[in-house]
């Protein structure tokens, strides 16, 4: 087979325009498939990043919007394997005007002294961390938020509360870096508590639990939920990754959406490449006759045509994978990136999926024309004028 390789290359290059057009159209479709596969992989298959694997989110079983008692904190803390439990609530509120999407960065109220313990992957200068812990009206913002709004340490941010009514003024005491998108702001729960009536102070939206080993996460999650079973407020505990994916499902049926688009893309490539191969084989019938006269066996001819199709579509698949890497880098940087589990840009399984799918589609699409070409009688092939 290897000795036919030069001939296969020559054949690929005989109609350069067509080859280039085919490669580009496969590459463009494949890059979409690459993005879909990468997203699917990140949501449903990938192992969480080491820091994420150590965090569980505890919330009310009824829904995210029902608060749970803070008194649960002590009892969760006592479960073996739990290292830290942090009170963690969605603060919401309005910054300037909600109609502008860039003003809608996430805002959480937390326990400042625990924040950088539970979120070990966040980096912040030591003095800024201290200032955040000491100042009740302090806040810290992610690098992305700081860049979008040109915030500096010492600036003040005014928010109008909704879940927590009132006008709040915060001083930025620190800007932290995160390995992921960081369009987020953390504030001190004490400051929020002061504005609340007595009966709401003892509640929290969620608990963020730091555990000792990733393999304990299922056991601890069950232990937490069992502790509060049959109480007026039952809990639902899940890994941070599962929590994020569940949150995303609010956008609609993501899994189905990814599958449907991937399916349409693959079918389109199949059509494109089948069409091209059929055209190029039809043009060459007479040539096949000459090859046969020279003594090439039908199997060799079949192999050459299949090889050509495979080569062209694999090239398209590879180019598509490269483009999809660029696109994913763009997606990870977008505000949407904050919802995503960690994305590794170079994901071997995505590359393999792209190239192998493309190559398989190439072989499948050229099978019919290749078979008919290899089976055609010499005389008929030589007589063909098309």
């Amino acid at each position, binding site marked *: 087979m290897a000795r036919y390789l030069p001939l296969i290359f020559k054949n690929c290059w005989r109609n350069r325009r067509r080859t280039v057009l085919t490669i580009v*159209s496969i590459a463009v479709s494949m890059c979409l498939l690459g993005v879909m596969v990468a997203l699917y992989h990140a949501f449903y298959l990938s192992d969480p990043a080491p820091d994420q694997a150590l965090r569980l989110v505890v919330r009310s079983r009824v*829904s995210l919007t029902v608060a749970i008692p803070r008194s649960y904190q002590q009892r969760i803390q006592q479960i073996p394997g739990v290292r830290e439990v942090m009170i963690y609530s969605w603060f919401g509120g309005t910054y300037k005007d909600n109609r502008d999407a860039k003003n809608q960065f996430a805002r959480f109220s937390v326990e400042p002294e625990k924040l950088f313990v539970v979120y070990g992957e966040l980096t912040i200068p030591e003095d800024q961390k201290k200032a955040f812990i000491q100042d009740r009206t302090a806040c810290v913002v992610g690098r992305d938020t700081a860049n979008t709004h040109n915030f500096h340490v010492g600036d003040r941010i005014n928010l109008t509360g909704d879940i927590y009514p009132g006008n709040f003024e915060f001083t930025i005491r620190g800007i932290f870096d995160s390995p992921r998108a960081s369009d987020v702001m953390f504030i001190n729960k004490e400051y929020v508590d002061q504005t609340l009536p007595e009966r709401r102070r003892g509640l929290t939206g969620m608990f963020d639990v730091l555990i000792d080993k990733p393999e304990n996460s299922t056991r601890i999650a069950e232990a937490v939920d069992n502790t509060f079973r049959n109480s007026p407020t039952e809990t639902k505990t899940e890994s941070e990754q599962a929590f994020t994916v569940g949150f995303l499902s609010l956008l609609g*049926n993501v899994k189905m959406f990814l599958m449907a688009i991937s399916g349409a893309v693959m079918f389109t490539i199949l059509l494109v490449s089948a069409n091209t191969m059929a055209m190029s084989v039809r043009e060459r019938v007479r040539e096949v006759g000459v090859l046969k006269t020279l003594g090439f066996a039908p199997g060799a001819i079949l192999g050459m045509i299949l090889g050509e199709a495979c080569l062209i579509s694999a090239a398209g698949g590879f180019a598509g994978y490269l483009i999809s890497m660029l696109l994913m880098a763009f997606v990870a940087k977008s505000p949407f990136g904050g919802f995503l589990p960690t994305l590794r840009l170079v994901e071997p399984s995505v590359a393999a999926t792209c190239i192998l799918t493309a190559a398989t589609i190439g072989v499948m699409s050229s099978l019919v024309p290749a078979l008919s070409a290899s089976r055609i009688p010499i005389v008929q092939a030589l007589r063909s004028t098309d």
Partner: protein
Amino acid sequence: MAIPLAYNLRNLVVRKTTTLMTALGIALTVAVLLAILALVNGLRTTLSTSGDPLHVLVLRKGSDSELVSLFARAQFQDMKFKPGIGTGRDGQPLASLEMITVINLGNVDNPNGVNVTVRGLMPAGIEMRHGVHLASGRWFDPGRRELVVGRSVAKRFPDAQVGKKLHFGRGDWDIVGVLDANRGAQDSEIWGDVNQIVADYQRVDTASSVMIEATDPVTAAALVNDLNNDRRLGVAAMSEKEYYDLQTRQAVPIEFTGIFVALIMAIGSSFAAMNTMYAAVSRRAREIGTLRVLGFSRFSILVSFFVESVLLSALGGLLGCLLVLPLNGLTTAIGNSNFAELAFDFHLSPQIMAAGIAFAIVLGVLGGVFPARNASRKEILTALREV
């Protein structure tokens, strides 16, 4: 003189496999675009039929969804007797104190459950929602732990059927009826007595929002101003229509993603169309030469091949419309501003189909212009000699 259209049509028929494959490629691209547009259109239709211009929704200042709004009962008493509020059958003002919360229900697609809106409301609240009527069963009795579920909720969740019980808050609730909001957002809600629901959530003094009905549109606008300017109340009022219109902005990311995907696929399929047309040009070199000898100008050859490409893609566009047709009327759901799901139907309008065919024709134009130019530039003698 122009080359007759029949020439192009026959050429497409002769090469039927290639024609069909290229057209199918375009059809799929168009189908993806149309599916997304139909989805967004369905969502917009649902949201725009949900709001009544006479209704005024009152939330706490700073809240932009009912779920995060908090409302004291005392405020409601002050507000009830504002001028311009309609009068109900019982002689009371048409104002309803409402409480919104969400509960988690599971179904086949989502075994972990999705959020569904529960709305507690007063009898006036039912009376003023003219678009909502009972599909089966009966309304809940005030003072009892009874629920009426929306049509979409009943359709999508096996647990939400008349005669069954739902467990949330402090205990079980009986489902006694199904409401039909004529595809409005209320079809995705579960309704019950507001006093029962606030009691279960230990929020006796507070609810989420107030819905009032004005006597006419002018009064409604005046009422909105009046409420917004009343510093004593500290509330934000807007017409219900405006509230739902604001929610349509969540369709923007879906629309954006869909158009982006369709555009990328369009590059792929317009290149495929280009490939097909180049092949057609090179296979018909001798024909082109003959046409030139017969006296057809370069320009008419250019036009002819261009038209053929457009015909091919228009066929693809039509096929694409046929492919998405079964989607029309299919129900799906999306998260709404209350963190709960909002069910709606795909809605394929004639305008959307026209947009799809126009999109296909653009693909054909892009894919056809270079091959057509190539064909028109052939020299007569070399063209005749080509094999």
